[in-house]
């Protein structure tokens, strides 16, 4: 859709502006700088994202993504730039998820949270600083994402996701990522994702422990771990006692972002119908195959 609006003169402009980059392996790659992307976007009246996608389609790598291409290829980067990812919760997990999705070059981000930063967030929530305490997490995360990558489009919702509004808030997303801190909200996200027929990348943490599951609409889900009856569900876990240290949220958020990249680019195998159990103290990762 975007590329059809991009004329041959723009393509020529991109190709002519490309410089040769000599990679450490001795190969030369045509690259285009951030400044040149912005200049072409300005002069041609199109978005920086459209310039980047057009460049990639013609074998020219926006230099900011140069180190991504070896793992996901030009096509993978194009797919990411064309994708919409929703992040529900912008705290310990969510803040790092937003930061990495912006750096990876996911074109459209939806950030959902209704909370403000408080002092006890400073130990682990990467978006929180002493200066922005009291500010809304969505506003801070959106600002940060745009500072990291001005080509991406960020939409925020200052709301708590519920069973009632889940579908509306997540509409348009290709993948949803979990940055939540309670099970009932996670069940609401899972329900909305199943209704919208999109994958949901779940993670949760406590102390040195974390868990991750990627749930496609046809896959086993949270009920395969927690049971299906509301009587059996733990609303909170051992985090109420162990707390959440600085490292564990980042560790799981990194794995979640990798799942998103795998889903969108098709490179690699997502953790489906399994639960990944991460133990940072013992430095172990275990997988359990899940069944209905």
């Amino acid at each position, binding site marked *: 859709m975007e590329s059809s609006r991009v004329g041959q003169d723009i393509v020529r402009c991109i190709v002519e502006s490309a410089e040769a980059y000599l990679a450490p392996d001795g190969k030369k790659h045509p690259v285009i700088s951030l400044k040149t992307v912005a200049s072409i976007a300005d002069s041609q009246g199109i978005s920086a994202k459209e310039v980047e996608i057009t460049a990639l389609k013609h074998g020219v790598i926006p230099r900011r993504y140069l180190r991504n291409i070896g793992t996901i290829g030009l096509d993978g980067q194009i797919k990411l730039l064309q994708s919409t990812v929703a992040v529900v919760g912008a705290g310990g997990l969510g803040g790092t998820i937003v930061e990495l999705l912006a750096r990876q070059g996911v074109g459209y981000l939806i950030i959902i949270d209704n909370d403000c930063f408080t002092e006890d967030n400073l130990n682990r929530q990467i978006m929180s600083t002493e200066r922005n305490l009291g500010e809304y997490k969505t506003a801070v995360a959106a600002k940060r994402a745009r500072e990291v990558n001005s080509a991406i489009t960020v939409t925020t919702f200052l709301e708590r996701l519920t069973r009632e509004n889940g579908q509306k808030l997540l509409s348009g997303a290709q993948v949803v990522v979990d940055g939540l801190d309670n099970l009932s909200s996670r069940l609401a996200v899972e329900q909305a994702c199943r209704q919208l027929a999109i994958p949901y990348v779940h993670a949760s943490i*406590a102390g040195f422990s974390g868990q991750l599951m990627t749930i496609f609409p046809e896959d086993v889900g949270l009920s395969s771990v927690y049971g299906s009856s509301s009587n059996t569900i733990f609303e909170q876990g051992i985090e109420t006692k162990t707390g959440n240290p600085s490292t564990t949220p980042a560790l799981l958020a990194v794995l979640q972002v990798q799942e998103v990249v795998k889903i969108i680019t098709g490179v690699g195998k997502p953790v489906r119908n399994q639960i990944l159990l991460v133990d940072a103290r013992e430095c172990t990762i275990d997988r359990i195959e899940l069944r209905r």
Partner: protein
Amino acid sequence: MALITVRFYSLWRLHTGTGSVTLQADNVDEALAQLEEKFGSQLREKLEADGIHLDGKIQDHSLILLNGIALHNLKTTGLEEGDVLYIFPPVAGG
């Protein structure tokens, strides 16, 4: 009696001091009772030293899967030779 394997994860692995045990039992309740007897006091003591109070039995504060199925979703809890029970604490932070 079926010979089964029980696998512990996260804090439960740390505090029981083992990744897995084997035991013989006819059903899940019997297996959990054996685990409670073998590890219950040890787990409670160590968790309490960490400031985590385990008021009830191991299973009251654990997620438990039998061959990858949540215990709560099982229609029958009889055990067969080679079954695997997975036990880990619930984590819900973000």
